[in-house]
């Protein structure tokens, strides 16, 4: 997946001279995960800039550059280091268009690794997408495969508004797939149905698509036909696809790695309750990270929801 991200950068920089890349170690080093590998060689130091080690600098500069006609694609090295940049994102990036009634805009992409599962150090494994989804005026996107990373990143760069692009670290190297470098973007307002099903709808995103698809396969052996939906665009969410599936199956289990409390899953559950309650055959269930601090690596897989937890929740839902 990491190569697909580099490809999307390359395509768009080739075709749009306004696109510039900035971040820590994105230049000569090609990013700590190699997501910008080769870009500085190809496009030069002006368009692929190593910034000083300061996240507020990255986000604030991106606001300034974007407002004056560039299309910055910024990398935050890990999601745990995003927080100094939130001031800029919440107070400026997300609302420049609104504040100026459209006179100035922020077509910025802020990319960041997301989630755990790679034995990384402290503060490197959190999933805090909810914080971003709560901010009006920015899109939040989380791809779950190389081709979706490619297509959604292109769409994010082309979008006229700020997009937070969360890249699941567990998938950077775990998923291999041929990706056509054809410059084709994917919609930023659509879920991806990864698997059709009639008994149950499993809704998830990011790296948890792996466990969720495995759970769906196990459920099939037990005679339960589970649909799997990759939300992909976490804010705004394409509820239409989710509601269509839930009204068909009548059962919904939401799976996410982030802590449960006020998670994106809660918003999905609320929307389904508002619009499809009478179609439900069973209470909505959430399989999520626990409402505690993401533990260090010895316990990180005790925190990340397991295939078994998803299967059990799905079977409970189907028993109702």
């Amino acid at each position, binding site marked *: 997946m990491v190569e697909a991200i580099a490809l999307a950068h390359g395509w768009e920089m080739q075709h749009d001279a306004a696109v510039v890349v900035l971040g820590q170690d994105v230049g000569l080093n090609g990013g700590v995960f190699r997501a910008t590998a080769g870009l500085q060689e190809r496009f030069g130091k002006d368009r692929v800039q190593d910034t000083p080690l300061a996240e507020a600098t990255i986000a604030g500069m991106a606001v300034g550059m974007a407002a004056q006609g560039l299309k910055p694609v910024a990398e935050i090295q890990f999601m745990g280091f995003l927080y100094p940049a939130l001031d800029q994102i919440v107070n400026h990036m997300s609302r420049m268009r609104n504040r100026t009634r459209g006179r100035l805009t922020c077509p910025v992409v802020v990319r960041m690794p997301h989630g755990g599962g790679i034995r990384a150090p402290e503060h490197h494994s959190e999933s805090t997408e909810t914080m971003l989804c709560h901010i009006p005026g920015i899109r939040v996107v989380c791809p779950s495969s190389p081709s979706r990373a490619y297509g959604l990143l292109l769409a994010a760069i082309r979008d006229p508004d700020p997009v937070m692009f969360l890249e699941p670290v567990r998938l950077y190297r775990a998923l291999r797939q041929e990706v056509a470098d054809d410059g084709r973007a994917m919609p930023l307002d659509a879920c991806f149905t990864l698997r059709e099903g009639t008994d149950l709808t499993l809704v998830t995103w990011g790296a948890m698509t792996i466990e969720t698809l495995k759970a769906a396969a196990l459920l099939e052996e037990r005679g339960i036909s589970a649909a799997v939906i990759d939300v992909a665009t976490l804010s705004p969410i394409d509820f239409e696809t989710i509601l269509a599936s839930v009204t068909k199956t009548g059962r919904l289990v939401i799976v996410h790695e982030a802590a449960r409390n006020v998670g994106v899953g809660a918003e999905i559950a609320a929307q389904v309750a508002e619009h499809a309650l009478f179609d439900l055959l069973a209470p909505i269930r959430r399989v999520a990270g626990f409402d505690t601090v993401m533990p260090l690596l*010895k316990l990180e897989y005790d925190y990340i929801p397991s295939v078994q937890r998803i299967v059990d929740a799905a079977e409970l839902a189907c028993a109702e």
Partner: protein
Amino acid sequence: MRTVAEFKIEYRQILNAGGDIVAPPPGFARDPGALLDMYRAMTRARVFDSKAVNLQRTGLLGTYPSCVGHEAVHVGVGAAMRPEDVLAPVYREVGTQLWRGVTMTEILTYWGGDERGNHFAGPRHDFPWCVPIATQTLHAAGAAMAFKLRKEPRCALAYIGDGGTSEGAFYEALNVAGARHLPVVFVIVNNGWAISVPVAAQTAARTLAQKAVAAGVRGVQIDGNDVLGVRATVAEALEAARRGEGPCVIEALTYRLGDHTTADDAGRYRNAGDVQAAWKIEPLLRLRELLKRSRVWDDAREAALNAECAAEVDGAVREYLAGTKPRTDAMFDHLFATLPAHLHEQRDLARKYGTSSGGG
């Protein structure tokens, strides 16, 4: 036109790369015992560090940030601090932690992915490792404020890297420390590299020490490979702060001989020749040379010390590897002083699906 402010930054070196004393030596430098203690501590840190990297390479440790080349700063700072002072480290200061009584097993436990490594028995008031860059500098300022309010003769010392001095939190810490005249010392370990970004790309400032000037704080640059200079300078800064003379910024020039962490490959962005040159001026060489010239050291003692350190490290590794995995529900044990009732259900769920019912 008239000049309203001017500044100069002094550079200090006592022991040069050749092992010569090039400036008036501080009192402790005349005590071979003190020098040997420091040399032993630097060797201990280096042997430990090299083993930790190997443990990561063989899957027995998580990502680990090597401190090779930083031993003079780490040990010089450790020796200059008093036990009751508070350390706010970054994540690389193994040498200082070891000097202050954190055990090798505890350090391995943390980098092995177990929070119990932060529950060290040694300096109970010290802050734990700090991964979010520069945030610890404000903690040190806050600790210093606590000492000042309680009129305790104690100081806080925060480490920060060269890259970290680009963060807003660092400037904010300097500012408040200067404005409130706090007993805090900031030690910038300028090892030349913030992962792949060299200092020259971080800042246009000639030195990092001069960042103190804008905050009205004293700043000094020292040779970070010279343990005598580090210890003397840090000790003077701490004693001045203790006397109520306010904060100080010390920029220690050294070199990151290793990768940023085991997840990094510095060969991708660094010139091999620069690294080789840096190995010639690394901190252990010159102190060993000084000790040999003082006839308190020889190859046999060197071999014995290395063997002793290796044995100690092996013991710690055995203890670390024999340790129990944390219990699954340990992730809830210290979330709050008392776990709220609504989380009991989640803890039960974690236990049900968890893999570990082992240690604490």
